[in-house]
């Protein structure tokens, strides 16, 4: 249903309805901004990247294959833009927590894994804790979890968006959950 609506907007835009593109921007602005923010970790870069993503979408919309999902297409553009941004800045957030031996100090310091959800939800500073934990995950892990549980993507959609094989996504998801449990 949502896919069909996106496709309709794209084909309407391509046949000359300029408003359709604005509707697409409105629809995806929040998810794309959240995605870029989660990926690069700061508001200014996230804003620039989000703007860049929509520009790229506009430039390439004629090449968009209507048999593909628009959602995964735009997220794959967002992911590549974030990677480019991080590459330019040469920042690898997770590595900040690694010592010379390559051990992750942060993970080492975390207490034993605890049962999730119910207990954790009782914590007063849940939002803060979760945000902090998410920030401490590597971008790859963070994005898999974010797309899966925040944007409700299927593994197939995540795989298409991140341009990774589905099995890689699944194993990364599993490892990311384990890491998150440790961090929480």
């Amino acid at each position, binding site marked *: 249903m949502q896919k069909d609506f996106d496709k309709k907007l794209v084909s309407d835009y391509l046949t000359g309805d300029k408003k359709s*593109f*604005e509707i697409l*921007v*409105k629809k995806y*602005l*929040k998810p794309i*901004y*959240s995605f870029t*923010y*989660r990926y690069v970790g700061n*508001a200014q870069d*996230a*804003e620039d990247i*989000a*703007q860049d993503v*929509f*520009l790229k979408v*506009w*430039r390439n919309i004629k090449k968009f294959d209507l048999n593909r999902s628009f959602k995964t297409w735009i997220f794959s553009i967002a992911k590549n833009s974030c990677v480019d941004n991080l590459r330019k800045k040469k920042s690898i957030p997770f590595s900040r927590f690694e010592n010379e031996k390559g051990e992750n100090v942060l993970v080492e310091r975390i207490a034993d894994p605890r049962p*999730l*959800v119910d207990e*954790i*939800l009782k914590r007063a500073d*849940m*939002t803060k804790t*979760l*945000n902090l934990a*998410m920030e401490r995950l590597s971008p790859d892990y963070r994005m898999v*979890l*974010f797309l*899966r*549980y*925040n944007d*409700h993507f299927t593994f197939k959609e995540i795989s298409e968006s991140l341009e990774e094989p589905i099995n890689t996504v699944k194993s990364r998801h599993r490892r990311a*959950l384990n890491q998150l449990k440790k961090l929480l």
Partner: protein
Amino acid sequence: MLKDYEKLFSHLEKKEPPKGLFDRIILAIKREQELQHTRRLLSGFLSLFVISLISLPFSWSMLIKEIDTSGISYFISSAFSDINTFVILWRDFSLAIFESLPLAGMIAFAVSLGMAVFTVRLFLYKKRLLLGYLKQSFA
């Protein structure tokens, strides 16, 4: 499990796009559209300019050659040297002149000239836009 984690992630701080980002995106797209339009205009202008620059002297020399070989100058000079005969035989003279017109050369020259005039007019009309774009590109 999916529901549990979705519930957990509902606690994740929501990152709202800053106010005005939508407008900035739409503005950036419009600017890009204008830039594309100027780029197309500039490439059209440059191609026309180059084509007319090359074709104008060629078509001119072609026209001159055709005029020399066609005999039109002979008919015209006869008409002027013997104006009385021309007045009596004006129909035959006109037909002869018309038949000897170097049509191919004239058309080629007219097209080249038209193109050159159009290029100059286009440049004068969009001078500010084109120069602005060029300045921006080479800055």
